[in-house]
């Protein structure tokens, strides 16, 4: 019988029951969704890196790495895998597409995962293993012929398998491309045997009469020169492997860690960003949901006081009554938790799936959503907590005798407010006094309404602010610093004089980037020749500043890492050289990359332009991309719009989370306010009926109800603004390692956030106010208080 009562009571309190389930589902959903996302990124990419033998270190020597060098590195204790590795952007014959032609001597290091076709065969000189996404978008299937050309080498073969490689988890042409374009750029693996065959053909074309022994030596030499990189799997730290490799090979080598590889660093970046986001706003979100649920649960139990007393008077044991009423909490929290887990899974899946947001950025075979044990444990703890609160509420009511429990619940008596007796109080209308006293009489309900609107405003301001901050960041860099219409990427073998000439022809500016070691960091030393104002610099407050004539600008992140101030000297050592340069820091600037920027004159003064690593690699011009003639020393040309578009695509993932947060915040605010509003309506039902009997019109009573909600919402909104800005600053500081963003929260963020928060309060207020039309004065005023 009690079971029937359970169902019927649930029907009576259906609004509260549904809202509690929705609250828990939303809270858990957002929390699980945000946190499962970064955990899933970590686990799925880690598994992919492991399956592909993703290299821990990349040892680079521009002069080439011989097979003897490889043997020496393999002999280093602590090295578990070694493979000479080649990756060059090759043109696809018959189209304007490019593929990263990749050769790894050992498929166990920097290899790939086969998704269709035949396994890799390192002795097969006639076959390719092609990126599956590129193949799919270009209608290429196993068995199809493919030809790619790199410089004057032509590689032709049959596509034997479709693959995915962790080396190209983020498959971009170069650092200038932010988002992959699988339609026009992918990667293809060829065997070392194919490389040897192609080199052999080239040698034979040059020297048709060459004998086999000489040919073998010639091919080996060319191969040794072609392979400039050896990829290594090792658990050693960088210093250890640097020392061991330098000693083994007898020369200083450039060793890049996996953190310097875009696939690894970006996936870790995404993971850390997700972890930071997941640890702040969704936690707050969950806290509001739980608090509101607890308040509602407690109040429902209180409103069942007489029924609890009746059961007790009838002879039901306390244990049975407790079990009965606690089962409401069990049903609500379990249903909410299950729905929340499903919602969280779906939120995560919307991002982390082949067809999801991250699917446009990462290419990997396994997109399994991972919900770690600690998330399950937190959800379980939430369920247990709500059940425990439900239990305590009933237990508290059962403390007295049956007669005491039978008495209807009377809210705490009102006490005088501090304001009373003042002139302001005397001038207040009765409705104002009534509402003010009611707020203090029902403190927990009022506090929850406040926390609900405050928390939602905080999240809305933080979400809109994050959006504004990001847009400001992009505007600063793309409108502020990049004045040019096109950026031309010069090839690595382009002559500096030709690049200067090209810049002159196009009335543009140019820059050279030298990759160098500074302390234990890899930095980009960027040398600019700005005569046409194609590129500008900003200080740490985003004001345009000129490049100093004497000294260089250091970006904010490096300045922080090196604790560098104007007047300090930073020493850099360009990779691939034994040189070092002392750079005078003259200012700190905002930059997209971790860089030190200087004029060509200053670079000349410190001798950097004489370095063999000094190569002009970018030319900036106002000439449109399609007006620039193709030539051998130009790798690619990007219009400013291309860069902005590709960043926009990248930003979609970010915006998705912002939208999820905004929608969830509005929903949370709506549910919290409606739930507490209904509770307030029920608790003041009798008072409103009295007012109605006295002759107050429905509208006037409605205004009373709305105004209390509005006051609390206005207070929550006003205090939520600084709290939202604080939360955003906190988040941005945590994310500071990734971006150099200045928090910007202006009317663009605050106005829509305020409109949404107060809009929800007004809508909910009107929904509840409309209910007073249905107040049954006769029924409401029956019985005793």
């Amino acid at each position, binding site marked *: 019988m009690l079971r029937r009562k359970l169902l019927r009571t649930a029907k009576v309190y259906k609004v509260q029951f549904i809202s509690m389930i929705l609250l828990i589902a939303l809270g858990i959903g957002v929390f699980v969704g945000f946190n499962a996302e970064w955990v899933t990124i970590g686990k799925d990419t880690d598994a992919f890196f492991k399956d592909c033998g993703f290299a821990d270190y990349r040892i680079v020597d521009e002069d080439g790495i011989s097979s003897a060098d490889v043997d020496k590195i393999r002999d280093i204790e602590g090295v578990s895998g070694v493979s000479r590795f080649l990756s060059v952007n090759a043109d696809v014959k018959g189209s304007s597409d490019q593929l990263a032609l990749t050769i790894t001597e050992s498929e166990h290091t920097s290899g790939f995962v086969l998704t269709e076709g035949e396994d890799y065969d390192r002795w097969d000189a006639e076959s390719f293993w092609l990126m599956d996404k590129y193949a799919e978008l270009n209608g290429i299937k196993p068995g199809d012929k493919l030809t790619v050309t790199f410089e004057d080498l032509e590689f032709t073969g049959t596509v034997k398998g479709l693959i995915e490689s962790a080396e190209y988890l983020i498959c971009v042409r170069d650092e200038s491309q932010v988002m992959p374009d699988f339609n026009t750029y992918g990667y293809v693996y060829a065997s070392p045997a194919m490389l040897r065959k192609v080199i052999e053909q080239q040698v034979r074309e040059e020297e048709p009469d060459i004998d086999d022994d000489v040919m073998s030596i010639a091919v080996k030499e060319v191969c040794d020169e072609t392979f400039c990189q050896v990829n290594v799997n090792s658990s050693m730290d960088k210093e250890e492997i640097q020392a061991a490799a330098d000693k083994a090979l007898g020369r200083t080598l450039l060793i890049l860690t996996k953190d310097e590889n875009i696939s690894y660093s970006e996936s870790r970046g995404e993971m850390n960003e997700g972890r930071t986001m997941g640890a702040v706003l969704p936690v707050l979100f969950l806290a509001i949901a739980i608090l509101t649920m607890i308040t509602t649960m407690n109040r429902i139990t209180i409103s069942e006081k007489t029924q609890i007393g009746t059961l007790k008077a009838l002879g039901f044991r306390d244990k049975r009554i407790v079990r009965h009423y606690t089962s409401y909490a069990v049903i609500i929290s379990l249903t909410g938790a299950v729905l929340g887990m499903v919602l969280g899974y779906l939120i995560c899946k919307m991002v982390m799936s082949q067809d999801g947001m991250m699917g446009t950025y990462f290419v990997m075979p396994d997109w399994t959503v991972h919900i770690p044990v600690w998330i399950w444990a937190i959800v379980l703890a939430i369920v247990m907590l709500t059940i425990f609160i439900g239990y305590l509420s009933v237990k508290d009511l059962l403390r007295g005798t049956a007669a005491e429990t039978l008495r209807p619940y009377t*809210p705490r*008596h*009102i006490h005088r407010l501090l304001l009373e007796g003042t002139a302001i109080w005397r001038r207040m*209308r*009765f*409705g104002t*006094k*009534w509402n003010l*006293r*009611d707020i203090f*009489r029902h403190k927990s309900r009022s506090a929850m309404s406040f926390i609900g609107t405050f928390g939602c405003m905080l999240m809305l301001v933080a979400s809109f602010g994050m959006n504004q901050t990001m847009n400001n960041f992009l505007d600063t860099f793309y409108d502020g610093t990049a004045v040019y219409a096109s950026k031309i990427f010069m090839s690595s073998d382009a002559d500096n004089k030709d690049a200067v000439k090209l810049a002159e022809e196009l009335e543009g500016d140019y820059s050279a980037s030298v990759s160098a070691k500074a302390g234990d960091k890899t930095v980009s030393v960027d040398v600019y020749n700005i005569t046409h104002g194609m590129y500008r610099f900003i200080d740490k407050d985003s004001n345009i500043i000129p490049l100093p004539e004497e000294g260089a600008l250091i970006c904010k992140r490096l300045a922080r890492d090196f604790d560098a101030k104007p007047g300090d000297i930073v020493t850099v050592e360009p990779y691939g050289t034994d040189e070092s340069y002392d750079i005078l820091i003259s200012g700190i600037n905002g930059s997209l990359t971790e860089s030190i920027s200087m004029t060509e004159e200053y670079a000349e003064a410190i001798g950097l332009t004489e370095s063999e690593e000094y190569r002009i690699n970018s030319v900036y011009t106002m000439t449109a991309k399609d007006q620039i003639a193709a030539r051998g020393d130009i790798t690619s040309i990007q219009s400013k719009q291309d860069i902005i578009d590709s960043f926009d695509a990248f930003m979609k993932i970010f915006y998705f989370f912002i939208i999820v947060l905004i929608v969830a915040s509005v929903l949370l605010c709506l549910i919290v306010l409606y739930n507490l509003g209904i509770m307030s309506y029920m608790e003041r039902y*009798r*008072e409103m*009926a*009295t*007012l*109605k*009997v*006295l*002759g*107050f*019109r*429905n*509208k*006037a009573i409605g205004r009373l109800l709305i105004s209390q909600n509005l006051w609390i919402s206005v207070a929550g909104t006003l205090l939520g603004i600084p709290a939202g800005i604080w939360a955003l600053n906190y988040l941005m500081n945590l994310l500071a390692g990734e971006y150099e963003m200045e928090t910007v929260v202006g009317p663009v963020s605050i106005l829509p956030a305020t409109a949404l928060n107060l809009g929800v309060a007004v809508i909910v207020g009107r929904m509840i106010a409309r209910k007073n*039309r249905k107040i049954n*004065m*006769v029924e409401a*005023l029956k*019985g*005793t*208080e």
Partner: protein
Amino acid sequence: MKIVQFKDVTRTYVTGDHTQDALAHVDLEIEGGKFVVILGPSGAGKSTFLNLLGGLDNPTSGTIIVDNTDISTLSSDELADYRAAKVGFVFQSYNLIPTLTVLENISLVEEIAPDHMSAQELLTEVGLADHAHQFPHELSGGEQQRVSICRALAKNPKILLCDEPTGALDSETGVVVLKLLLKMAKDYGKTIIIVTHNQNIAKMADIVIHIRSGKVTSVDEQLHPLSAEEVDW
């Protein structure tokens, strides 16, 4: 002058398939300035009568005219205005607003009643001037009912409608409250209609209306009503 006229008034309640006439074809007229007691057993339709007269409920059929106004056709807002101007209620359970002080509970009607009386003066008259700034829960039941009477009178209505006004009070306090109620009604020239099943109260009335099974069974005019002191409580 007839202040209340019920013309063939029926109020039917429908519950599922079941319909019940709480009042059936009631025809009744009440003179202004009289003290009327409506008597009847539980479920007879007394409260329905009072609710219809007070504009808390609408008749299913028939016409109710109060002070020359047909209230049976008024809209929700017009009924509110009617309640604000023409009738004052006194309930068994006082129905004071717990978050307003005694004085505020009375003066809140100033916002709706165009012809309201002074709350402070009324309080002085009922001997509660010292309690003006206390909250209802700080008063005894009798005191709370006195506040309730003040609130009903503060609107300066034509009619005072009282539903078992002494029902929640002990008999001694009940008599005090009743005496006060009658005195105030007389002093201010109000028609007072009390619904009760206390036969003793009926002894004090000018007119006693008996209701049974939704029908008015008798309307008795008492030429010599007793005073409260004369009634054997």
